[in-house]
């Protein structure tokens, strides 16, 4: 009997080791350890043995039973550890499935990037109405009477008001700066804000010119603010857009609403400042105008220019987006064409 038991043990361990699935193992478990299994059948003959033999054989049988049960469990673990969901390995070169579509307009994305940077510097974000008046678009900004921008050919005047003057002559805002005066009138100084928005010019369109485009204005007004500190605005924007510090320079520039006025250049990112056709071999690319608000503009905003000064910049968001992604046609931004917009998800 002892020999038989030992035979069963050997056969069982071999069979278990050869099992390839947990189903096979379950069958083997029943075959060996079940109620009608081999071990039970053998043990039925225990009664015929002497008490001493019975004790010894019983002990051996138990031992074998535990051993076999353990072997089944460990084989089970082994099989699970090596299990796969696939009979045939799948083709893993097939691309992943897509996420939901949708996205923000690339101009909005750029605008939010810049907003985040300026919010971290405690700037407010400002927005204003698109229809304004000559008073805010030109008079308050120190544009001389008869300035060409006031003429119909450059600005979209509202029908019925086009031959009036000042506050009564309405237009789609040709730039954001007039709105900044409204902010200062309302909130006073010191002021620190950015002002993203869309502006409108009556001109013929091509790949570089649009009738509706986006600007991003930033303005600080504070006591005794120097233009040497104004570069903060420029640096914040360029660093956000390009992800690294970009060399900038300020040079003499004329705009009616600033004094001193600057053209602000950045090191050409195509040649790294070495000189190339893009920068006309100067190593610098003009990116934005800027300057200290003209005393007449501060006065229009109700501020005393002997107390308050500041710095202003205004950058074309469309152009920044075009530079960031290499977009070559500004008209795409208003196309509402998903084939274009979906590229910026």
């Amino acid at each position, binding site marked *: 009997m002892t020999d038989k038991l030992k035979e069963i043990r050997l056969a069982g361990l071999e069979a278990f080791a050869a099992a390839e699935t947990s189903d096979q193992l379950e069958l083997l478990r029943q075959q060996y350890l079940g109620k009608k299994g081999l071990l039970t059948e053998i043990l039925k003959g225990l009664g015929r043995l002497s008490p001493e033999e019975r004790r010894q054989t019983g002990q051996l049988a138990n031992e074998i039973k535990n051993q076999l049960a353990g072997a089944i469990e460990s084989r089970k673990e082994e099989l699970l550890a090596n299990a796969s969901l696939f009979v045939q390995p799948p083709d893993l070169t097939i691309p992943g499935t897509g996420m939901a579509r949708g996205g923000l307009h690339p101009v909005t994305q750029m605008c939010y990037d810049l907003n985040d940077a300026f919010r971290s510097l405690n700037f407010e974000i400002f927005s204003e109405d698109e*229809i304004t008046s000559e008073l805010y678009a030109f008079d308050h900004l120190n544009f001389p009477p008869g300035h060409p921008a006031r003429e119909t050919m450059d600005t979209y005047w509202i029908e019925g008001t086009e031959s009036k003057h000042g506050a009564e002559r309405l237009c789609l805002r040709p730039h954001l700066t007039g709105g900044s005066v409204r902010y200062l009138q309302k909130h006073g100084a010191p002021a620190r804000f950015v002002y993203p928005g869309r502006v409108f010019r009556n001109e013929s369109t091509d790949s570089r010119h649009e009738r509706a485009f986006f600007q991003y204005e930033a303005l600080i007004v504070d006591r005794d603010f120097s233009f040497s*500190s104004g570069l903060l605005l420029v640096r914040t924007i360029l660093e956000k857009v390009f992800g690294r510090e970009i060399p900038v320079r300020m040079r003499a520039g004329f705009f009616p609403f600033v004094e001193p006025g600057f053209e602000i250049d950045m090191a050409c990112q195509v040649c790294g400042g070495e000189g190339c056709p893009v920068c006309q071999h100067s190593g610098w690319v003009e990116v934005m105008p800027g300057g200290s608000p003209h005393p007449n503009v501060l006065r229009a905003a109700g501020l005393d220019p002997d107390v308050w000064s500041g710095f202003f910049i205004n950058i074309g968001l469309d152009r920044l987006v075009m530079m960031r992604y290499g977009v070559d046609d500004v008209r795409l931004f208003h196309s509402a064409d998903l084939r274009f917009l979906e590229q910026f998800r």
Partner: protein
Amino acid sequence: MKASLNWIRTYADLPADITAEQLSHDLTMRTVEVEAVTNPADLVDGIIIGRVITIRKHPQADRLVVCDVDIGEEETSQIVCGGTNLYENQLVVVAPVGASVRWHGEGQRVELAAAKVRGVVSNGMICASEELDLEDLFPPSEDEEAEIVDLTALFPDACPGQPLADVLGLGDLILDIDNKSLTNRPDLWGHYGLARELCAIYGGTLRPLPTYQKPESAADYAVSIADPSRCFRYDAVVYEGVRPEKSPFHMRRLIWSVGMRPINIIVDITNYIMLAVGQPTHAFDESHVRNGIRVRTAKEGESLELLDGRELTLLPSDLLICDGGDKAIGLAGIMGGARDSILPETRNIVFEVANFEAIGIRKTASHHRVRTEASMRFEKAIDTQRCDLALGIAQQLLSEWQPGARLVAAGAHRARETESIELPVSLQFLNVRSGCPITAEAAAAALTPLGFGVCFDGRDTLTLQVPSWRATGDVSIKDDILEEVCRMIGYENFRYTPPAITLGKAVRQLGMESDRAIREFLAYRAGLQEIFTYPWVDDSFLSITGGKTDSLVSLASPPSPDHHYLRGSLIPGLLEATVLNSRYYETYGLFEVAQVFAKGEVSLFTAEEKLPLQERRLGLALAGAEPFPLFRLLKGILSQIPRFGRVQGWSFAPVGDKMPWADRNAWLRIVSEDGTVIGSMGLLSPKATADSGVRVPCVALAELSLDQMVPLQSRDNRFEHLPLFPLVEQDLSIVVDEKISWAQVSEAVSNHVHDAEFVEEYRGEQVPEGKKSLMFRFRLSGETGTLTAEAIDQMRSRLIKKLKYTIGAEMR
């Protein structure tokens, strides 16, 4: 504007070795933007002087000859030529093999190769002026057909082989300056002003200009200004015995090198003066000017034929130059009249040097669309003192080049002189506003070379005398002085100083934050694409969507005739965008945040400013195949906006009139908590769908006011305790009358279940006509313990009973 460095050097001692790059950089940093620097000599690179030795007939062609030309080498060069004015010993312009020319003055320049012309070898060509872009400098005479440039008379000492550029003296640097950067600097519209600026930059000396002396023998000439608010000064000088022949070559070359065409010595002198000091002048043929000059505004209906042949019908605001007989002879400050050209027969001239008010000139020039070199300069506001410079140069040039001319009469009316400006500026102001210390010496060193008078009181105040050429609007306040000082020191020499900032409260802008959260929800959760469309709407989409036009704001000069109105709703633009994209996509969603406009009178800042109504709105458009799922999707997105956008919630109800564009069975208004309608949503009606030409079966649209949304002070949803005992979930299908709504079912079960959720509707087989089957899922919870099977059955039958009594529901 173009400027010649050679010309500038006649007024200024500048470093001799200055490079184009340096000049361009320094001027750009300090003063004006230099867009390009070119050397006119490059036009004739490789082109040399040749002497024609022999001329033979071409064996194969009647119109060609074969020349042996001495080009300074041991052997003569054989060149085939079609020139009609060739003669032996003639000094000509030769383009040897390897040089580039513009064939017959047309097309791109091409490099010459040795070639056979009708079988005869030609080593290069003898050039006509147009082939080297020199036609303005050597204008072909009208009667010669194929005239080559003849240098024999002009440069008898030129040697064969000598570079043409050397002989003509073309070596120069021409600065091309961006006109926009010059708008505030009338003093820089001439070489003398630029010379002054460069002297200030490089530390050179500016030479004085000749002064004007009226000879004692000269008679008085009658000049009167009828409107002294438009013409501040008018000087007329009469010269007799002029001979308007070709100008000396070097004068022609100078004028040509900065982009003007030499005409004759009289016209060239007027242009030269303008280019020298920025003061436009004019010469009238004296035989057309009777009894003096009178400057007056035009009479109603008066007309004038201009020098260029255009006939203008004048406005009463146009300023005219008339003669003593009141006959108009020129449009003041812009262009002379047709009949007063200086012709070769002209012998006596009236020379005009005048000063006109800037805005008037601009208005006339832009109204009649006649912008000239003169009007461009007068528009910038020139000082009256500059007339004296012009008179001086004119007198000197005429005496030098027209010795036969006599100044016989002169007269002037000087109504107003440009006033000098005295400006006190404190050093402290300069220091604070620049962010860097500036001494009185540094300020004086920057300003004195620019012509400012500088006087320092030894403590803090500089008193500055603004020179007349900067005193016509350009420099009038201390901030202008700040700019002058700092740009001359060089902005690149001011180090960045981080601003000192006092931090008050953290910025808190709930509306801005909600706006962004809503857009990000729509883009990244709802899967919609943000778009921007123009504020002007297409008339056809306006009518498809049933937009009324009487309340719309319109543009005086619209971008196109059918984009006259500004949008009063985002719907037309969204539909147009949906139609456009239906060519490439079947299922998609779009949204736009933008302002809409309606007639109105809103005065937020001043009473005089009456702006139209302007409201920020959010518009959504979905395109898909099945109408009701599309409607539900849109409703689902809209319901989630308050949660994600952190604004007060809203509900949906079919209140008011249907939107004109919507399906009569699928539209709702969006109603805020206080009962205000703040938006609408619906499916596009079959009619509007057909009219729009959209290529998808169904479009759902919504629009709601962002301005009327109320941002929450903080998030307002609350934590819910997890259920103590497991919830039991079951489905139930009931059959109800068609008129019974889900809202009624939901209401009926609300007291009996933990929550209930709509699953589906079904109509068709097994459901009687006029009825519908409605399936929903509900969850039950036990208050004291896990629900037993009996308890669940009990609750379910109570629910069924309630449904039967309240809405007549049968089980399915």
